[in-house]
């Protein structure tokens, strides 16, 4: 085993809350070059963290995510909007100020540079939240591909500590710490308000868990970061808030069928295959990757992303082979795990369209054994719609 002192070992990057996680006894892992908490035994571990988010509230440090601001020079819709339209597949012109959407940056081949959340901060001012493992690649790609536009690119990744407060009680926790009225912020909208005494804090009703929740962006110095973390934990105590790691973040996003870069999406997979057409606005005008996507659509799909539920005993894992009755390879698992909410073993996999129908039997090869699975509807989990309280109590 490689010694920790091997000089060739590249130092892992740390968020401002690294010491906090270690003090809490978190199990730390290398995630895309970042030293991040995977679970907190003090929270009860991954399954307890997952269930806290589904039923109550959990707190995640997601400061490893990157942030790119693209703003124009005139204050009117212009260079920055045109640049964002050029480099991303969703239609940013449809965003109101204070609104965000899921989008992706594509290579000319129609495959993924990265997926992003685009926030419209002003008429010609956008914030793109990008993945940790692709930060450098993304910023270089954005700079390269926005050269002809009248806009300024700022990398703000290291300026923010990003905290995700997730779960049905997230709103109750955060409301105790801010003057902003959270009840008026709709899903995928954001506002600026005072949070823990920090003025003009970005508060977005976004997340990567499939649950209601917020992401806040505070200054990344260790003292401020730790103070805000502690105040959120204190405010959440009455709702049994727990710190949550990347382990629960992964099982939560998988149940909700949210893509993970390097798994469901990559530079080898196109938008149609990934089933993300809902976020790709071909009619908005030209953008990088559009022409290839036109051709890909005309040529037809050779593989498509499906949800699998294991019927045999066994857990499908990332990169396991999917095969047919006779053992012939038909596809590959991109993400697989036990689902703490459903109590079943679930997976996402690429298979030929002919095998994508709900109920189709597919086998997953697990340590040389063919284990039976079937294609199921996705997302595996959808959060319950809020039911309006009865207006008046009925008496019989």
């Amino acid at each position, binding site marked *: 085993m490689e010694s920790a002192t091997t000089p060739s070992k590249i130092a892992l990057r740390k968020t401002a809350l690294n010491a906090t996680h270690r003090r809490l006894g978190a199990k730390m892992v290398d995630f895309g070059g970042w030293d991040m908490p995977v679970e907190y035994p003090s929270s009860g571990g*991954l399954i307890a963290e997952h269930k806290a988010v589904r039923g109550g509230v959990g707190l995640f440090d997601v400061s490893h995510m990157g942030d790119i601001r693209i703003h124009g020079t005139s204050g009117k819709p212009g260079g920055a909007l045109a640049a964002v339209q050029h480099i991303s597949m969703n239609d940013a012109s449809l965003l109101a100020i204070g609104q965000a959407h899921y989008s992706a940056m594509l290579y000319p081949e129609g495959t993924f540079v990265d997926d992003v959340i685009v926030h419209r901060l002003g008429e010609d001012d956008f914030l793109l939240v990008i993945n940790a493992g692709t930060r450098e690649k993304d910023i270089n790609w954005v700079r390269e591909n926005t050269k002809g536009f009248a806009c300024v690119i700022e990398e703000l990744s290291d300026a923010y500590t990003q905290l995700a407060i997730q779960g049905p009680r997230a709103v109750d926790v955060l409301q105790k710490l801010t003057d902003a009225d959270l009840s008026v912020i709709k899903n995928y909208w954001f506002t600026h308000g005072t949070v823990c005494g920090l003025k003009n804090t970005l508060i977005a009703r976004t997340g990567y868990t499939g649950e209601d929740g917020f992401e806040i962006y505070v200054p990344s110095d260790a003292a401020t970061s730790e103070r805000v973390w502690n105040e959120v934990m204190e405010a959440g105590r009455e709702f049994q808030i727990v710190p949550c790691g990347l*382990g629960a973040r992964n099982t939560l996003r998988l149940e909700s069928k949210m893509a993970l870069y390097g798994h469901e999406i990559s530079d080898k997979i196109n938008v149609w295959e990934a089933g993300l057409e809902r976020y790709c606005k071909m009619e908005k005008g030209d953008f990088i990757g559009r022409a290839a996507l036109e051709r890909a659509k005309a040529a037809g799909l050779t593989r498509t992303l499906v949800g699998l539920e294991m019927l045999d005993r066994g857990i499908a894992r990332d990169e396991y082979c999917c095969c047919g009755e006779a053992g012939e390879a038909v596809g590959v698992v991109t993400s697989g795990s036990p689902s703490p909410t459903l109590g079943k073993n679930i997976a996402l996999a690429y298979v030929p369209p002919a095998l994508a129908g709900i109920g189709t039997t597919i086998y997953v090869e697990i340590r040389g054994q063919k284990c039976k699975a079937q294609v199921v509807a996705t997302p595996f989990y959808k959060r319950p719609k809020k039911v309006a309280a009865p207006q008046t109590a009925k008496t019989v």
Partner: protein
Amino acid sequence: MAYPANFRYTKDHEWVDVKGDLATIGITDYAQSELGDVVFVELPKVGAKIEAGKSFGTVESVKAVSEIYAPAAGEVLEANGDLHNTPETLNTDPHGAAWLIKVKLANPSDVGSLMDAAAYEAFIAEKKKEASA
């Protein structure tokens, strides 16, 4: 959790409790804590031969798959079937109720080269120090 003084331990975090030529094999408390919530256990069939240092089964947590290596060679006499339905016992009682297999050892003296409890505790203390560095 204490490491029983009558057990021997491997660097891969298995324990073995030897009585004559019969051995009970499991994974250590350190192993279960590293794995996290155990959700799946796969064990060999009765009569299967296991070889020292070779994988004889698998323990899976939500996030990871971990092979279990045989501390010594032998023949499987019994596998702990309770773990099929309650794999989480591995998190709560790894040195007791969550034993994995009982084996007739080919050569009982093989286990003499494994660590005793004191040596194993020193070994994992070093591991923990590395992890927090």
